[in-house]
């Protein structure tokens, strides 16, 4: 084509007849096609998956003449059924972002230098290989640290294997869902997120869950919401949002209940109180499937108090009302509605749990589900089954690797400080700074930007100064990548082979297959391929463990198992699907295909596989706690505490007391292991800093995806008419008291910093709460993100949930004043 | 005077000399003023070129404030244009003898200012290059087309109406100036005027016919300008009162413009003997009447909106009375009503200076009136939306200043080429008017009519 598209568009736009809606005279584009003057462009639709969030929706990319020009939902994909959220729609601004890193680069000068020179992939790979070999040869494999901000899918699998084969325990990801997962673990023994069956619920009691904005799978939850609103025949579901801020979810709920920050758990306990007192709970469920509701005797014959007596003794409604700021009559009505509109479900995410008492809040909220028997029933809390992907061949480690893997992680706390943590990535920078338990030598970062995304980024900056060599796989020049010595830019999700399992909050397993929609844009390489290539270059030990030629090859290997699984179906049209689904639910599984080959071809062609049937009542699957029940009284929790005490050589009650004191737990005795209320601790004197700071992620800015996309900058603050800048939501009365009016510039100040931001008067703000969105305030990340708005995380100290080791988001008090 | 003698043939009537003087002699002050005006115009032209190149984005206009200063200027200038033709025509038809010295200065305003009205519309277009489409593809359903039609007719009619009474004066210059080239040029425009009886009859007939035609045309012009707003369904634009309201405002501001013009002509060219306090007094009275009328319309317009209390209308109403546009609105009320009332209703202050001062305020006030008609409605669309606020940029101010400067400059140049006071009419007044008036007065009195 001799004319560029731009010119071509100009011609259309400028010609006399033009487009318009003149249907009698079609646009010159069309007429010229007919006359054969214009090649209409080679158009194709590439089926792939959206990876802009964990949702993994199926997408179709419209590619004309090798250029991706539109993204639509894939109607065959069961998660989104052809629909997309704004983030999915905006993928083109990720793909064609002019601020992408366009090829491998090597730093010129020292750590603080911001200059790189372009290098070839060959040179880049050799540099990395030599660094890795150095570590391997000196037996320091554990000194390799890998941060992966997106621990899911194929990349996660390849990285874990690589770290395992290399010999480093230091592979870390995001820990923001820690408290939720820990709560499910302590009560049900399940070490992952739980799924909610919204579509079949009659009552959704949400404790700050932002399921209509930044949920693990926004399209899916929005679809469920719409189904509850207008799709379903029969009874209408009621949605109640308990939250300190009138969020999108609150605004679309039937009722919004503002609650004092950090007291969500208390409210749940008050509701439990009514349910218990009025004997509205599901007696048969409680009897058959729970542990620790009534007082009980252990093996030694000691009597322990149960949840029932704990609740009845301690959570009188006047007390609950005073703490939470919710009236007694509201609590009673919520409890009655919740218990009598079954199936009802109590949901939460990491908002209600981002306080010092977060784990207990989570336990309290989740216990409501057990009270009304909403576990493993339609409309309740479910556990997702995994996609039966093929396991990777076992790893045969060599001596160096074995030793490396036995080393403690660089995230480990001194003396097991956090009893129910599985990993504590927030400790990494401090540990690196102090060389504890050993110095970090080589850091790899993939989709991770800790300098922007963790509290007290100064620690990270300093830690980075101490690491001899840093490699970033980022596609964008973010704050952390600025420290990198070597940059090996990744391709975006629209240019890769990949697979996406539906997010864990979905009750059914779905596997989407992704192919590159376009290739040859910039000199970037999928990091999956880079690691596979790396393994080949590292010698036969590595190469033997990575027999896959490239990421496509790896993908084909992973899905090889699916046909044999004799479950589920390849994406199909709606009619065929409902037939198969009906059969499978009745226990008939009909193979769609006769051979594995045919299956695989069809799978690649249709873009995915899923298993629409959910098996209820597999008790061992749903309850994996020691009692194989839902534990109001968590024996796993107790075990953990006892283990620590044992570890320290003593198991006396005194020692346990001391441990609990260290953990700053106020409760005593059996109460410690049951859902109860601990007062949340906030940093900053209440007199000096009278307000709570709340930070939330607008749909379009979740994590830091949105701020370098101009489309999102335009829409993110639409409820307050804000664009291209951060804002602080302030209650009108509070604002009047402080002499602040709409659009004034104000300072938000905590003991840890102060930020300059525009005030927005918002009726949906509680009087003692200031809300600020996450996602802006970058000092890098390209022309649209850089120096725009504020990063509220700069106001937050590093403060831990003493039980889970989670770094807290809502732990600080602030004051505001006019600038 | 000796110089003048060189320029003029000797038999010029003594009374005509002061009127011809500005044409024959130009002082330093004049050039200084021209220089300043040219500078302002150049800045305006620069701003305009910038706007043409970059797009309307460099103005303060935005969404949903799509119209601003330019449209205000348009309405304002078209309003001013009523000064001339309409006033002069009415006075002519009414045989108001005191008109004779002022008609010309009034008519010039009309013709010149119309260009600036049209210019502001063109400036406001996103695609001024496609302006011709209004003629080739015009849709008569649009009030803007009505404007195009009526303004074109008005411009043509006013130009003719200005030109006809100029003919005898041009002929006079053709005959009395010494310079050959000047004689030649004036000769062209004099259309072979010999001053024969027949020519006089035709001329006077033509003038009276034009006077009759021009009045409805002028009224129609400002009525359809008001229709640009009134035909929409936007709150407080969609109003039946707008036609007469705009016409009143137009005459009001027109008189003010005329008084200002007369004031400066009188001072700069020492024509105190021609433009007398009585002229200012009479125009002042007329202006007082218009001020009262204007107030009556403003009052009615706002009261109906307030009483009706439709939310969409009230939003506009309050933004004028107490909101963002209150400063403009109340300044307008003071300028257009309070000050004129105080100064003009008192005979002692209704002096040359007094009316001049009032006129300045009225000009400012009437510009603000146009502004507060255009803006508050746009800022308060029916659906709650981003209620932007409008801050014009230097571009719009520069273009506006350029327009005013260009208008003044052209006016000044006119006075350098043509007598700004109609010589023959003044003469006619002296020769025939007195007798006619006497007879007319007699005819009013009891007794036998002639």
């Amino acid at each position, binding site marked *: 084509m001799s004319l560029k598209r*731009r010119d071509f568009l100009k011609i259309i*736009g*400028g010609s006399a007849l*033009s487009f*318009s*809606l*003149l*249907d009698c005279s079609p646009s010159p*584009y069309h007429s010229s096609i007919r006359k054969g003057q214009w090649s209409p462009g080679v158009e194709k639709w590439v089926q792939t998956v959206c990876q802009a969030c964990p949702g993994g929706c199926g997408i179709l990319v419209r590619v*004309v003449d090798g250029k991706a*020009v*539109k993204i639509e939902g894939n109607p065959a994909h069961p998660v989104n059924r*052809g*629909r*997309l*959220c*704004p983030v*999915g729609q*905006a993928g083109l601004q990720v793909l064609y*972002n002019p601020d992408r890193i366009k090829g491998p680069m090597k730093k010129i000068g020292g750590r603080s230098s911001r200059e790189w020179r372009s290098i070839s992939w060959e040179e880049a790979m050799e540099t990395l290989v030599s660094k890795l070999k150095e570590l391997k040869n000196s037996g320091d494999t554990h000194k390799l640290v890998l941060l992966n901000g997106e621990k899911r899918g194929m990349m996660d699998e390849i990285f874990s294997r690589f770290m395992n084969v290399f010999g480093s325990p230091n592979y870390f990801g995001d820990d923001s869902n820690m408290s939720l997962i820990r709560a499910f673990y302590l009560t049900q023994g399940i070490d992952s997120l739980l799924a909610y069956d919204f579509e079949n619920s009659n009552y959704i009691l949400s404790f700050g869950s932002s399921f*209509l904005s930044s949920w693990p799978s*926004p*399209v899916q939850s*929005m*679809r469920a919401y*719409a189904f509850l*609103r*207008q799709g379903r025949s029969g009874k*209408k579901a*009621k949605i109640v949002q308990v939250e300190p801020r*009138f969020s999108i979810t609150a*605004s679309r709920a039937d009722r919004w209940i*503002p609650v004092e920050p950090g007291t969500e758990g208390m409210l749940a306990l008050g509701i439990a109180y009514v349910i218990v007192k009025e004997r509205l709970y599901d007696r048969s469920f409680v009897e058959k499937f729970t542990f620790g509701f009534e007082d009980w005797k252990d093996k030694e014959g000691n009597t322990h108090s149960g949840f029932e007596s704990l609740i009845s003794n301690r959570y009188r409604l006047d007390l609950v009302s005073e703490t939470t700021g919710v009236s007694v009559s509201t609590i009673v009505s919520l409890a009655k*509605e919740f218990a009598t509109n079954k199936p009802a479900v109590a949901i939460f995410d990491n908002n209600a749990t981002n306080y010092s008492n977060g784990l207990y809040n989570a336990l309290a909220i989740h216990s409501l589900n057990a009270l009304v028997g909403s576990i493993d029933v339609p409309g309740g809390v479910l556990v997702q089954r995994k996609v039966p992907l093929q396991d990777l061949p076992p790893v045969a480690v060599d001596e160096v690797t074995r030793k490396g893997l036995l080393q403690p992680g660089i995230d480990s706390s001194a003396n097991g400080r956090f009893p129910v943590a599985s990993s504590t990535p927030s400790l990494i920078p401090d540990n690196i700074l102090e060389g504890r338990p050993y110095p970090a030598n080589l850091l790899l970062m993939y989709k991770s930007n800790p300098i922007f995304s963790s509290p007290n980024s100064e620690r990270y900056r300093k830690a980075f100064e101490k690491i001899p060599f840093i490699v970033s796989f980022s596609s964008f020049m973010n704050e952390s990548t600025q420290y990198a010595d070597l940059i090996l830019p990744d391709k975006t999700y629209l240019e890769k082979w990949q697979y996406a399992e539906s997010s864990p909050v979905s009750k059914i397993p779905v596997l989407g297959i992704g192919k590159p929609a376009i290739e040859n844009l910039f000199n970037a390489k999928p990091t999956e391929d880079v690691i596979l290539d790396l393994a080949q270059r590292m010698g036969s030990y590595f190469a033997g463990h990575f027999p896959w030629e490239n990421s496509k090859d790896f993908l084909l290997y992973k899905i090889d198992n699916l046909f044999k699984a004799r479950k589920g179906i390849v994406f199909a049209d709606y009619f065929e699907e409902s037939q198969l689904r009906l059969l499978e639910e009745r226990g008939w599984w009909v193979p769609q295909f006769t051979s594995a080959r045919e299956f695989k071809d069809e799978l690649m062609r249709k873009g995915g596989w899923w298993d629409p049937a959910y098996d209820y009542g597999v008790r061992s699957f749903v309850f994996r706690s020691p009692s194989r029940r839902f534990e109001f009284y968590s024996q796993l929790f107790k075990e953990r505490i006892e283990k620590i005490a044992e570890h320290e050589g003593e198991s006396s009650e005194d020692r346990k007391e001391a441990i609990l004191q260290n953990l700053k737990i106020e409760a005593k005795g059996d109460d410690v292991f049951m859902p109860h209320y601990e007062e949340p601790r906030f940093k900053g004197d209440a007199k000096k800093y009278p307000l709570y700071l709340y930070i939330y992620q607008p749909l379009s800015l979740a994590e830091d995806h949105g701020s370098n996309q101009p489309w999102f900058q335009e829409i993110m603050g*639409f409820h307050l008419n804000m664009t*291209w800048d951060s804002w602080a939501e302030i209650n009108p009365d509070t604002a009047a008291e402080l002499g602040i009016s709409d659009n004034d510039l104000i300072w938000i100040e905590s003991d840890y910093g102060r930020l300059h931001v525009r005030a927005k008067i918002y*009726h*949906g703000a509680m009087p003692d709460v200031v809300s600020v969105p996450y996602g802006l305030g970058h000092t890098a990340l390209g022309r649209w993100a850089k120096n725009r708005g504020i990063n509220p995380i700069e106001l937050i100290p590093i403060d831990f949930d003493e039980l889970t080791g989670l770094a807290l988001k809502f732990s600080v008090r602030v004051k505001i004043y006019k600038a | 005077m000796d110089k003048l003698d060189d320029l003029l043939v000797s038999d010029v009537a003594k009374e005509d000399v002061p009127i011809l003087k500005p044409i024959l002699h130009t002082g330093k002050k004049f050039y200084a003023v021209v220089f300043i005006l040219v500078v302002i115009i150049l800045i305006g032209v620069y701003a305009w070129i910038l706007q043409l190149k970059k*797009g*309307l*984005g460099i103005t303060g*206009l935005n*969404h949903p404030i799509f119209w601003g200063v330019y449209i205000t200027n348009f309405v304002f200038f078209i309003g001013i244009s009523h000064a001339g033709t309409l006033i002069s025509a009415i006075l002519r038809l009414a045989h108001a003898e005191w008109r004779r010295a002022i008609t010309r200065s009034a008519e010039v305003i009309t013709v010149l200012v119309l260009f600036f009205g049209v210019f502001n519309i063109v400036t*406001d*277009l*996103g*695609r001024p290059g*496609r302006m011709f*489409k209004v003629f080739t593809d015009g*849709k008569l359903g649009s009030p803007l087309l009505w404007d195009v039609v009526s303004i074109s007719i008005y411009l043509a009619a006013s130009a003719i109406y200005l030109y006809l009474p100029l003919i005898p004066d041009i002929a006079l210059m053709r005959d009395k100036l010494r310079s050959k080239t000047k004689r030649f040029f004036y000769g062209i425009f004099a259309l072979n005027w010999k001053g024969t009886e027949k020519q006089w009859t035709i001329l006077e007939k033509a003038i009276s016919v034009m006077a009759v035609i021009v009045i409805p045309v002028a009224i129609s012009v400002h009525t359809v300008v008001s229709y640009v707003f009134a*035909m*929409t*369904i*936007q709150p407080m634009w969609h109003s039946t009162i707008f036609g007469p309201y705009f016409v009143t405002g137009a005459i009001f501001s027109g008189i003010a413009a005329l008084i200002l013009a007369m004031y400066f002509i009188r001072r700069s060219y020492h024509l105190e003997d021609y433009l007398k306090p009585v002229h200012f007094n009479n125009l002042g009275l007329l202006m007082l009447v218009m001020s009262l009328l204007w107030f009556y319309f403003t009052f009615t317009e706002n009261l109906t909106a307030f009483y009706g209390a439709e939310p969409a209308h009230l939003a506009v109403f309050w933004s004028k009375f107490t909101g963002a546009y209150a400063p403009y609105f109340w300044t307008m009320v003071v300028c257009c009503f309070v000050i004129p009332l105080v100064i003009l209703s008192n005979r002692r202050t209704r002096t040359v200076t007094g009316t001049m001062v009032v006129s300045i305020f009225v000009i400012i006030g009437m510009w603000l009136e146009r502004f507060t008609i255009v803006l508050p409605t*746009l800022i308060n*669309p*029916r*659906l*709650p939306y981003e209620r*932007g606020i409008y801050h014009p940029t230097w571009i719009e101010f520069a273009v506006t200043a350029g327009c005013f400067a260009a208008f003044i400059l052209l006016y000044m140049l006119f006075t350098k080429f043509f007598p700004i006071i109609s010589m023959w009419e003044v003469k006619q007044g002296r020769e025939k008017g007195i007798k006619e008036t006497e007879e007319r007065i007699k005819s009013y009195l009891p007794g036998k009519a002639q």
Partner: protein
Amino acid sequence: MPRWGMVIDLDKCTGCQACVIACKAENNIPFSSPKEARLKRIISWMSVLPVMEGEYPDLRERFIPRPCMHCDNPPCVKVCPVGATYKNREGLVAQVYTQCIGCRYCTNNCPYTLKYFNWYTPEWPKEMENYLNPDVPIRSKGVVEKCTFCHHRLQKAREKARAENRRLKEGDYVPACVQTCPTEAIYFGDLDDPHSLVAKLARGPRAFRLLEELGTEPKVYYLTEGEWHG
């Protein structure tokens, strides 16, 4: 002739703005700069209007997505001096960019403020020019634009139907915003076909239109929220 119309269910809409982005992506709408955005010059053929009522803590909010209403009696068309905006045979209110003189009279007479003006020549960084939709022209500076109901999609659907020698059927022609809406809150179809879903919904008890009292006869209907009964 079909009479294309839209029904938007406010009970389902979550204000996610996928429709807004889909429209921008489909129709080559340039994005604003921060400076332009401050002047409210963002072009967004589809925009979601948040309407909040009440005071803390008793708040109600609804989100109203607004494309052009494609009024059957369009006030914007009446005032255009050059016929650059007009209603076509299928009732779509069209905008002829090459005819528009940019007087912005129509923008001022749209009671819904849904017409947008090109304050500058639209520009994209070089890389982003790749994603422009070849089916939709780029507007020039100084002209007015608005939602077209993705008319180019109708043209394509019609061509396709013609090539397959059949009539246009429901679902052949779906605008971009309708297609993406995660909650399926937007329905689209022929209002004159009594069997179409949109026609049924538009006749239903929850249906209303914006500023109906002005007599503009919008072809975009809204459905109100329902109440929960315990």
